[in-house]
């Protein structure tokens, strides 16, 4: 059995908090932070990091291209 484990890195200073990634994540990984970044935006972060499958959906819909996605195929 192969379990996929993913992670995203959000460039929080460039994130504009539009929530498009939040709506696009199949695993409900992402939420907007309570804090704001330098421009006053509530930026996206992995609220459920364990759930991320590294599908990159969030990254490809992010208008500002601020998400980088990593994925490992972990063999049991």
């Amino acid at each position: 059995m192969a379990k996929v484990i993913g992670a995203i890195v959000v460039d929080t200073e460039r994130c504009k908090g539009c929530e498009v990634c939040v709506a696009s994540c199949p695993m409900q990984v992402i939420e907007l932070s309570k804090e704001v970044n330098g421009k006053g935006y509530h930026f996206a972060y992995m609220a459920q990091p364990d759930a991320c499958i590294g599908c990159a959906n969030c990254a490809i819909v992010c208008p500002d291209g601020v998400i980088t996605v990593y994925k490992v195929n972990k063999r049991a």
Partner: protein
Amino acid sequence: MKLQEIIKEENLVYKRTPLMTDNVLSYCPGCGHGTAHRIVMEVIEEMGVQDDTIGIAPVGCSVLAYDFMNIDMVQAAHGRAPAVATGIKRTWPDKFVFTYQGDGDLAAIGTAETIHACNRGENITIIFINNGIYGMTGGQMAPTTIEGMKTSTSPYGRDLQLMGNPLKITELVAQLPGTYFVARHSVHNPAAVRKTKRAVQKAFQIQKERKGLAFIEIVSNCNSGWKLPPVKANQWMVENMFPFFPPGDIKVDGELVKKE
């Protein structure tokens, strides 16, 4: 597994293409322009033709596309991008030339240039962002504003009697013998982004093979102009714009796609 173990160079599956510059996009949060930019740049990167590509920025929110796309770019007068592209492509036929235009630019003031570049079959690619409004100037009615839609110059909703009908310019150019591939897509969710990217790939491939003009409409949100939060704006778009501007191929290999 620890995050640090996952976040490693060898596990990288997606990263912004270096053909997007490091400049922060000037677009509003959630605006589709950024995604559309990136798709075009990814295709150019993947084809390895960045050294041979010239982009034309319009007048509109994407007037500053040249600040974000890391390729040589020309900023065209409002509506004239297809003429500018013609001037470039005709004199450097082995370069890839594309225009990137909004609906006001392409379908209002630029109608003649759009129709004639398409009709001549200039061997270029047109990327057409249809957000149903004039974003840059503060949300005025566009030729693609749908019936009843409120904008700053149709504050009580577009009234077809007073303001005329919305224009399906994409269906129109598909009628012209010079267009080889015409399609409408969107960038509001991952599946749409993937489809759009395939269409853009195809468009540039057609240009490479000198088969004629490829025209890709991307229906997109202008959440600022529509006065909706981005995610709601995308929903509104699906519910209200798609019925009038249905996504899908319109003309493939020079043949209109039959509607059943």
